[in-house]
């Protein structure tokens, strides 16, 4: 979908800004809000670009720099910590050869940490794009990521 079509789905009210940014970001293959996205949003809502930028930078679900094709958000809040999130963080950093916030060389995955995802009954948990995964172990994470690699 092009930017125009996305914007047209919403009334040009400032209160729709989060919705618009969610959709623009989802539509961007590099999964971030590019300068063009920010500007399109600002023009549509009739607010300065700097305003859109400052709102986007406030919320963790938006990124202002390009990311991989798939976003891993691993939960590090106390319940997931108790159930072993730390060792998963180390494991993922090692196996993907990235730091937190980094993207793999092939552009396949970006590794992020997140606060509680609200699925702590199956801690430790993560999201891969829109999908939740729980009761994670290194083996399980591997198979989830392998499956994803093959799907593309």
């Amino acid at each position, binding site marked *: 979908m092009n930017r125009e079509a996305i914007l047209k789905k919403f009334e040009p*009210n*400032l*209160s*729709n*800004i*989060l*919705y618009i*940014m*969610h959709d623009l970001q989802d539509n961007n293959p590099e999964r971030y809000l590019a300068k063009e996205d920010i500007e399109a949003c600002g023009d549509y*809502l009739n607010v300065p670009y700097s305003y859109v930028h*400052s*709102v986007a930078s*406030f*919320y*963790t*679900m*938006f990124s202002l720099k390009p990311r991989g094709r798939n976003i891993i958000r691993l939960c*590090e*809040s*106390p*319940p997931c*910590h*108790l*159930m072993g999130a730390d060792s998963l963080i180390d494991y993922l950093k090692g196996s993907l050869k990235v730091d937190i916030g980094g993207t793999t060389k092939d552009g396949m995955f970006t590794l992020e940490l*997140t*606060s*509680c*995802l*609200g*699925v*702590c*009954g*199956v*801690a430790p948990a993560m*999201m891969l794009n*829109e*999908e*939740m*995964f*729980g*009761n994670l172990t290194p083996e399980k994470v591997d198979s989830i990521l392998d499956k994803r690699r093959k799907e593309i």
Partner: protein
Amino acid sequence: MNLVRNHVLISIDAGTIMAGARAVEKALVDEINRQGLAGEIAVLETGSIGATGQGVVIVVYPEGLYYANVTPEDASEIVEEHLLKGRPVKRLIMTEMPRQQVIRKEKTGLLKEQARIVLRNSGVINPENIDEYIAEGGYEGIERAFTELKPAGVIKEIKDSGLVGRGGAAFTTAMKWDFASKAPGDPKYIICNADEGEPGTFKDRLILEGDPHKLIEGMMLAGYAVGAAKGFIYIRGEYALSIERLEKAITQARLYGLLGENILESGFSFDLAVMKGAGAYVCGEETALIESLEGKRGHPRNKPPYPVTEGLWGKPTVVNNVETLANVPEIIRNGAAWYRGYGTDKCPGTKVYTIIGNVATPGLIEAEMGTTLRDIIYEYAGGIKEGKKFKGALVGGAAGAFMGPEMLDAKMDFVNLKEYAAVLGSGAILVMDESTDIVGMLQSVLHFFKHESCGHCVPCRLGTKQLVEIVDRIAGGKGKVEDIESLVKISEVMRDTSFCPLGQSLNLPISSSLKYFRDEVYGRVQQPA
């Protein structure tokens, strides 16, 4: 007419979807069709049945038999053996049963199961079908409000029920509604706070996934009581299934004339919109939430003025938690006196808890106010996993308090816990077994706050950063006694000078960890020569 002889309920929530519930559902339906049982056996979706971490869960009625960890490959065996031949598939029968019913101890001295209030329909009805909600007495509350109570009567009923907010701050609901109804300004708004970011908490998600119409009816009643025509549900962006179910439910309610203009010829008009958040814990704070709804950065506002007088777009606004609003239809339908039959005198009703961590059956439960921590852990959650010893619990989320074994017999309610300098908060109970490292837990709590500080005020922005540096040092074995003292001092300054409750609340996990686990924390720093 076909007589359905078995109902197969499949629990569809975010957890079971993760475990592959949709594939199992499809396999069951296919298999039932293949074996020619389509007219006799109905497969129905329901919300969470309260157990988590047990894969795909189905319940077969009339037997009421639970199967856990069901895979698509099991479908043919279940259909063939159980549904056709009447022989349950033993290897799949759930052994760790969820016990989410209200228990009452005080009157008989025995634990007894009772009907649930907030979760009454969850895991029982199909949340995507308004008729099932109506069949369970749904929308009778709003009818009683229109015909009998009128707005003032609704507020009075809620006042008499003693309902207090379940979002953490425990503010009296009727008082909020009364202020908003009397505040000058038009239009007025109702906001449901479904941002649910407190670590360990997912009760609101399961209420939304399991019984979305209850929330809609609760919001209608709030709107009717205060004279608001528009409501917003601010829901975290990650809760995809909740958003989907709510939107479906709103569409159905509109079709039935329960939302929109002149509802049921009452003269009252009300409509709802769902708004998606974008990942900021502080946006759960009501004024930050309002800023976010207006399309701004989610910084908290100065109070006063409070939202009840100047809220969304400067208009009188009621902000209530999902669980608070889900209590409302039941109170209005059954009356305040009925509601007061649950819980304690000072804290009537129930509380929905998420109980997680090192317990045998993590999940969702609803218990009467005043139930002890011991009963919650050992009666509901199956005790500590692998037979280990209980070490402590973090109750109320990251903004909550640690508790030691001394607290097992304390009655859990808003009023009583205050006496122990603890809080019920969001109702998250994170249970820790004997192997838990308390400093590591505290470290995780403080990292959470550093990440979520919105940076608006100095004490919290700098304080969270310093606290993390110090706790990292202690956890790394390089800490000194003075470091522990600094944790306390800095968090006290933050408690007294931070702009919003986020920065003010860090002192509680710090002081409570020292209260119950003092020796362990001091044992982790270099001893003075």
